[in-house]
């Protein structure tokens, strides 16, 4: 939104018709996209024929056009920790990373557990104007795990909350989880569960439990602490006939449970983070707190199972779990440091590197797992509708061959806890467009008044 981030030379004005030419349309082959009045007016090989006289042209040959990315799991830290991230800086980072919508987790201070707090976040997101910021509502008041938050009022609010989560904490009481699942059915909500049985992996658990945690003397976080909650929750979803979503799946065992649940027709969806698809637990050997994340990085066997599950649809979507922290919250002894890592700006590049460049997924799969399905799970009506005529022109243009060496200093986030710093990734976001307006190009971002 600030003027200095908006170069005067930006040639793509809004309002006038725009023809994007020659892009690979989400893996469906080369074609054009005609954008008029913030919507896709034509798409496909012949779309250019329908371009009105004087339409601007944007040459996108060699690029891949995806529907704007949607992140179901973002931490924006406002209100409460605006020194780590604000809705404005976080949504700038999102736009730079190719996102047009993010779901902001409820574990702010105060917690997003009322209609008023949810509306405030929605409004701040609209005012910033880089991406749609949809608040996630807390499942329980103050994330205490005891009394249900005002789920219905949040659903009926201007923010139209459909995703509820105590993320950061697990709704570990089975009775509370059951009631929450029953209650949200009437407005088609979903509970996104942070699966961590606190009696098996308590608050200090910070390293995958195994040989390495034993040697390093770090409190272990066993896979079964996640798997047992996933198993319980899919059974509760079956019992209540409601929708459960498993946040940041991290183990092969959880994948097995999900595969079984889907075969039974249980309405359970799941997400995996880019970091759990590429980074492994052995990075903790030096006690570098940038790699401290919850759930923890797992061994290679789990990473392989997660890749396979994302490719075959057992895991539905990619979500970043973008978790910014200021320097002083990370520069503690490993067990004392904050959990979490940045993810919004690098997610597409990581998925491109791990899944697309390796032949595990196509760009159509990326569109499904990073846009269409996250939007569908969150019941967003204005996002993730694909590159189809009449849909809002929410677009991400990707340069699939570009080599990106991540430099934490270039981040739009207020924080620098970037686990990818110095890594070379293949594939980068070229341009992001929200309802026909360019919000980011090559890492430069433009706000609402652009």
């Amino acid at each position, binding site marked *: 939104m600030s003027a200095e981030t908006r170069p005067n030379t930006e040639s793509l004005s809004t309002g006038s018709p725009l023809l994007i030419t020659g892009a690979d349309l989400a893996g469906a082959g080369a074609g054009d996209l005609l954008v008029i009045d913030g919507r896709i007016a034509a798409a496909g090989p012949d779309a250019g024929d329908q371009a009105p006289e004087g339409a601007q042209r944007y040459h996108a040959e060699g690029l891949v056009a995806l529907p704007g990315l949607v992140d179901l799991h973002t931490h924006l830290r406002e209100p409460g920790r605006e020194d780590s991230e604000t809705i404005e800086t976080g949504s700038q980072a999102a736009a730079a990373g190719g996102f047009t919508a993010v779901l902001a987790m409820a574990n702010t201070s105060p917690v997003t557990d009322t209609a008023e707090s949810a509306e405030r976040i929605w409004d701040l997101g609209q005012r910033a104007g880089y991406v749609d910021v949809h608040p996630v509502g807390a499942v329980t008041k103050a994330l205490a795990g005891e009394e249900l938050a005002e789920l219905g009022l949040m659903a009926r609010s201007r923010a139209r909350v459909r995703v509820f989560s105590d993320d950061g904490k697990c709704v570990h009481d089975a009775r509370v989880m059951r009631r929450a699942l029953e209650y949200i059915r009437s407005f088609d909500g979903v509970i996104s569960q942070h699966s961590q049985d606190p009696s098996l992996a308590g608050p200090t658990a910070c390293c995958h*439990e*195994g*040989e*390495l*945690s*034993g*040697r*390093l*003397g*770090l409190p*272990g976080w*066993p896979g079964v602490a996640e798997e047992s909650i996933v198993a319980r929750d899919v059974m509760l979803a079956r019992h209540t006939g409601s929708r459960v979503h498993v946040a940041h799946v991290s183990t092969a065992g959880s994948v097995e449970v999900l595969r079984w649940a889907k075969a039974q027709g249980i309405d359970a969806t799941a997400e995996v983070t880019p970091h759990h698809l590429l980074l492994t637990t052995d990075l903790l050997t*030096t*006690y570098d*707190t940038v790699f401290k994340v919850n759930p923890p990085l797992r061994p290679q066997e789990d990473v392989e199972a997660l890749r396979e599950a994302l490719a075959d649809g057992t895991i539905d979507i990619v979500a970043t779990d973008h978790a910014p922290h200021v*320097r*002083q*919250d*990370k*520069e*503690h*002894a*490993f*067990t*004392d440091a904050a959990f979490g890592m940045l993810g919004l700006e690098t997610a597409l590049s990581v998925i491109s590197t791990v899944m697309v460049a390796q032949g595990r997924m196509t760009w159509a799969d990326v569109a499904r797992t990073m846009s269409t399905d996250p939007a569908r799970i969150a019941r967003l009506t204005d996002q993730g509708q694909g590159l189809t005529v009449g849909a809002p022109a929410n677009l991400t243009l990707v340069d699939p061959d570009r080599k990106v060496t991540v430099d934490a200093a270039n981040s739009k986030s207020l924080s620098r806890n970037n686990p990818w710093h110095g890594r070379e990734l293949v594939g980068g976001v070229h341009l992001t467009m929200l309802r026909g307006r360019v919000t980011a190009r090559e890492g430069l971002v433009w706000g609402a008044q652009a």
Partner: protein
Amino acid sequence: MKHLLSIADLSREEILEILDTAVSMHEVQHRDVKKLPTLRGRTIINFFFEDSTRTRSSFELAGKWLSADTINLTGKGTSVSKGESLRDTVKTIDAMGVDMMIIRHMASGAPAQIARWTRCSIVNAGDGMHEHPSQALLDAYTMRQRLGDLEGRHVALVGDLTHSRVFRSNVLCLQKLGAKVTLVAPATLMPAGIGAWSAHDGLEISHDLDAVLPAVDAVMMLRVQRERMSGGFFPTAREYAVTYGLTKDRLALLPDHAVICHPGPMNRGLEISGDAADAAQSLVLDQVSAGVAVRMSILYHLLAGESSGAQSGEGSAA
């Protein structure tokens, strides 16, 4: 060698050098005037974020007898609660121009992290459930005094292995010196992934102390912390003492030449009976006495060794 963070960073030769130097340091300890001029003008901070009278006073005496200026700092209530990071805290001390920080911290890995953030030498005086390298060196020193070379000797480590930094450093040290190591504990007090340790590192694992004792040259009993008892790691203190304690009856199973070690403080009647603690084979007080000498040797090798060219200086994590 700039830091002592983990026994893993030391070669067998470096360990032996430290232990051999400690022999001459030990002689100083028995003189009327105990000062050596070796570290005159050097400044050592004992930075203890967790209480430990025994280790702190042992390092403090070691520094003083080598004529270093030593200062004690406690880190209680620092960092997280005050909003200052651990990095800021130790960088502030480092900026005063100290030569060495001896760090005790309740969190595993803290000394290794601090070594990346500061320029002075760092000695790990015990970090969380990770390591306690000076303890392992003094344990090896004490055993060598009685048993001679540890190559081919058999040592049993018994008790709460999961939470023990003494165990982690001792395993590495004893194996580098060529000893065979057997671990004895209930499965609930074995570290995660111990099966992989035994496979890679040739450790033997047992839940039967009676079967192990007749074959050992040394048995090291590890402290069971009282707070573990309510953690469901074992049913009752009575059951633990009967099953894994070095009782009077078990003393008879040890070979005559075998020795008993305990890093202290002891829970008499739990992991070790009074009879065993006070037996002729017990080296418990020898360990304490050796502690100062071994720590003098460590300080010498880290601070004086480099200027005299006695150490190669390579291989240290800067």
